[in-house]
C-alpha cells in the first residue's frame, strides 16, 4: 500500500511544501505498515467494534439549553456581515 500524500493533503485542504510531502509520505506509509500487520489477525466471527469503550451512548433530552451568543462566537471569525459569516465564493 502506498499513500498519495498530495491527494490526502488536497482532501484535507492542507498545503504542503515539497519537503513536507517527502517527509510525510514515508511516515504515513509506515503507519499503514502497522495496520497491515493487524490485518493478519483472523477476525472471522468477531463482531465489529463500535467504540473502544464498551459503553452505551448517553442521550440528551430535547430541551433548548443554548441562548444566542452570536456576538461572542463571531468575535473570532475573520469576517462577518449582518450576522453572516463571509467566506470566499464557493460556487462558480
Amino acid at each position, binding site marked *: 500500500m502506498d499513500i498519495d500524500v498530495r*491527494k490526502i493533503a*488536497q*482532501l*484535507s*485542504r492542507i498545503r504542503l511544501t515539497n519537503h513536507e510531502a517527502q517527509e510525510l509520505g514515508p511516515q504515513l506509509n509506515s503507519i499503514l505498515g502497522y495496520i497491515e500487520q493487524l490485518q493478519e489477525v483472523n477476525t472471522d466471527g468477531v463482531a*465489529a467494534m*463500535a*467504540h473502544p*469503550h*464498551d*459503553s*452505551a*451512548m*448517553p*442521550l*440528551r*433530552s*430535547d*430541551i*433548548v*439549553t*443554548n441562548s*444566542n*451568543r*452570536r456576538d461572542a*462566537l*463571531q468575535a473570532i471569525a475573520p469576517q462577518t*456581515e*449582518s*450576522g*453572516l*459569516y*463571509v*467566506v*470566499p*465564493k*464557493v*460556487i*462558480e
Partner: protein
Amino acid sequence: MSWEVVIGLEVHTQINSKTKAFCGCSTEFGAEPNSQTCPVCLGMPGQLPVLNNEAVQKTILTGLAIDATINLESKFDRKNYFYPDLPKGYQISQFTVPLVEHGHLDIPVEGGGEKRIGITRIHMEEDAGKSMHEGLDSVSHIDLNRSGVPLMEIVSEPDMRSADEAVAYLKQLHQLIRFLDVSGADMEKGQFRCDANVSVRRFGAPLGTRAELKNLNSFRFIKQAIDYEVVRQIEIIEDGGQVVQETRLYDSVKGESRSMRSKEEAHDYRYFPEPDLPALRVTAEEVAAIKAGMPELPSQLRQRFEREYGLSSYDADVLSQTLELARYLEDLIAAHPANPKIAANWLANELLGRLKESGHEIVNSPVSASALGLLLDRIADNTISGKIAKDVLDEMMRCGQSADTIIEAKGLKQVSDTGAIDAMIQTVLDANPDSVAEFKSGKDRLFGFFVGQVMKASRGQANPALVNERLKLLLNS
C-alpha cells in the same frame, strides 16, 4: 425497442425536534442568522456531541411505520468533505449500521391496486448550514442555524419504474411523515428534500449506469427532472455513447440539469467510525413502547371516517389526505356533532373550494371549524336554509365574522311564520291564475313552479319545508 426506467430515491427529512441532533441549540425556522449556534454545531475543537433522544425516538417511530427492522445497536460514522457550511469538515452520519433497515411502503398505482417499494434503510445524520451566493460577487455568506439539525435519510430500493411512481412514493412518504408528526416536512423550507438516482436499461438487461439528481424541492420538479434525465440518458445511449456516473443539479427555471462533477476527489468521503460517540443502544422494550404509542396512520384514519362518521369512501379519502384537514374535520364534528356526514360535505364541497379560490390552506382558513360548525347549527335549527347558508359562508370568508352576526346584519333569518308564508303564497297564486287553473286540472308538476316563485318572493328566506306544506294545503283548498 423500448427502455425501462429505474429510479431509487433518497429523502432527507428534518426531524421536528426542538433542539439540534448533538447540542441544545434551538431548531426554530426563520431565526436571525447564526443566532442558534454554539461551539458544538460550529465545530469548535474539543467540543463533544451528545445525541438528542427525541430524534432517536422519532426515527424509530418512522421505522416501525414502514414495517422495518429496528437495529438495537447502531453506529455513527464521519463523512468527510470540505464545504464552508459544514464547519467540522465532516458530517456525523450512520454509514455501517443504521438505526432502521429493511422497510417498505405501498404506493397506489395507476389503474388501481398497490405496488410495494422497498426502503433499504433510514439513518440518522445532521444537516449542514446554509450558503448564500445570490447577489454576491466574490464571497459567499454562511448561516449556521441549520448546522446540526437532525435529519433522517430515507433510502429506497431502486424499485420505481417511472417518474409518476417516484412522485407517488414521495407523496405517500410525505403524508406518512406528517401523520407521524416526526417532521414538518415543509418542502419550501427544505424540511423534506429529495435526491433521485435514475438509470435506464433495455427490458431484462442488468442495471444501467445511474446519475444522481440533486436539488429536487417540489413534487412537480421531481417529475420534470426525472423525465428530463430519462430522455438525456436514452439519447446518449442511442447515439452510441455511455452514461457517466455523476451528480447533476436540476435547474427548475431552465428545465434542464447540469453536471456537478468538477473534481473527482469531491466524492471521496473517507468514512470512518465517529470516535466521539459510542454505539447507540435501544432495548426491545423501548421499541415496543414506541410502537404502542403509534398514532393513527392515513389508511386507518380513512377507515375510521367511514365507520364512525358514515362518510363515503371518496369523502373519507379526500378528508384524510392531510393531518391538518383531518383535524379540521374532527374539530368541525366536535362543534356540530348532530350530523357528521353533512359536516363532511360542507367541508369537502363548500369550504375547500372557497379556500382554493382565495388561495388559503386549511390551516389558515378564514373560517375556523367552530365558526363553520355554528353555521351548520343554524341550518339544522332552521334559522337559515342551506342555500342562504352558502351565501353566509361566502361572507364569512370575506369578513371573518360569525354566521350569527351576518344573518342578523343582513336580515337573512329564515321565515318560518305560517301567516307570513301564507301571505306570500297567496300573492303568488293571485298573480298566476292561469297556472293555478292548469294545476287544478291535473298538471301536478306545476307545484315546483309555485315553490320556486314563493322562494323567489321571499328572497330565499322562506323555510322551504313550510312553503311546501302550506302550498299543498292552499292549492288544494
